[in-house]
């Protein structure tokens, strides 16, 4: 085997070492690809908002479709109250999507395949939503752990389950994205390695798999960004409209 399939996830610093209070904050390849994604998003949206046409061009149409897509997603899951959080959900979706998509380019780095990145997002969302819930509903927000219509005897067990499920939200949210991205890229790399090691004779089979997997991974990249955004919307909905 030529290279380690996990090698692609290595983080190494680019440029000088930056240390603040003994914490290494150096610019790394991960930071570089975050930057590339951010710049790609800016260029895409710049092209999409350059012209103000009644009949949109390709980029304008794309950006407006994206806007409508996320707008519909938010109004479907979290209702009208979630409107102020539209830019955040929009940024979140497009950033995760672009990170995933940039990661699909050969020799690139997938920012979202690192647990710490997705966990940072998930923790931010989790803490933000929890604070929002307490700010809007006060201590009544704790009702989220007490579903209505549950027999009193079952209540303690249900409450424990609800609390655990609530607390595991950031974990499931972050691990879902991270694991999907890592698994996909590892598989691609493994099959890519097989193409070389099996050579001209039998290498066609893993190559076919590789091509098919690339298609699948692009789908997964979109799907995971969508799932990440829609779960954020659902958590937001719980905090905005207390249903339990």
């Amino acid at each position, binding site marked *: *085997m030529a290279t*380690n*399939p*996990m*090698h692609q*996830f*290595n*983080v190494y*610093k680019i440029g000088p070492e*930056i240390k603040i209070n003994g*914490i*290494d*904050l*150096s*610019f*790394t390849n*991960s*930071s570089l690809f*975050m*930057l590339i994604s*951010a710049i790609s*998003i*800016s260029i895409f*949206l*710049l092209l*999409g*908002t350059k012209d*103000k046409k*009644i009949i*949109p061009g390709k980029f*304008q149409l794309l*950006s*407006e479709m994206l*806007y*409508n897509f996320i707008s519909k997603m938010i109004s479907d899951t979290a209702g009208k109250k979630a409107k102020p959080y*539209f*830019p*955040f959900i*929009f*940024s979140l979706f*497009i*950033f995760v999507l672009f990170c995933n998509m940039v990661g699909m380019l050969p020799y690139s780095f997938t*920012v979202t*395949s*690192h*647990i*710490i*990145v997705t966990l*940072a*997002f998930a923790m931010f969302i989790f803490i933000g939503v929890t604070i929002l819930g307490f700010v809007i509903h006060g201590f009544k927000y704790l009702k989220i752990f007490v579903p209505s219509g549950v027999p009193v005897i079952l209540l303690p067990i249900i409450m424990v389950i609800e609390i655990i499920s609530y607390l595991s939200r950031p974990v499931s949210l972050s*691990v*879902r994205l*991270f*694991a*999907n991205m*890592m*698994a996909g890229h*590892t*598989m691609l790399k*493994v099959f890519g390695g097989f193409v070389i090691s099996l050579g001209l004779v039998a290498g066609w089979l893993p190559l076919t798999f590789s091509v098919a997997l690339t298609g699948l991974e692009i789908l997964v990249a979109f799907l995971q960004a969508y799932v990440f955004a829609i779960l954020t919307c659902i958590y937001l909905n719980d905090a905005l409209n207390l249903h339990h």
Partner: protein
Amino acid sequence: MIKIISLTTLLLLTLNTVFAAEAGMPQLDPTYWASQIFWLTIIFSGIYFLIAKIFVPKIKGNIDARESQIRKDIDEANSLKEEADRKLQKYNSLIDEAKLEARKILSDGRKKINEDIQSKKEQIEKDIQKETLEATKEIKKFKINSLNKVNIISEEIISDIIQDIFKEDLNKSSIKATVSEVMKERRNQI
């Protein structure tokens, strides 16, 4: 989801034994965690502010502008349609009125013509009657006249004949009386 995660872990476990060159998952190496969070915060905040302050309002503006334009166009189209409907109604009512008027004129004309024909007919009939009456009268007169003339002629012829035959003048009044008597007989015969 569980499938993928378990597959990944299985894959990783087997891979770790196969590719023992590098240690485990680089994701779990905490060396650059702080750096990743730090740069993520900076870059994501940057892109968030760009999107929130510039791009989303711009896209929203575009969509709103298009919607208002479309609404305006639809309103205009509706008002035009209403006007067209109104015009059509007006036109229809005008046509109906004109038809009614035409029918009225037609029936009036027919009536008038009928009356005219009737009156002319009556007039002509009257005239014919009058003419006939006059003609009858004239014929009667003419008959009488002609009879009188026949009398006179007869008298003259008779007197001439008598004169030619008898070579003498007869009393004119006696001839006249005889002729008128014969004529009266004849007239009675007629």
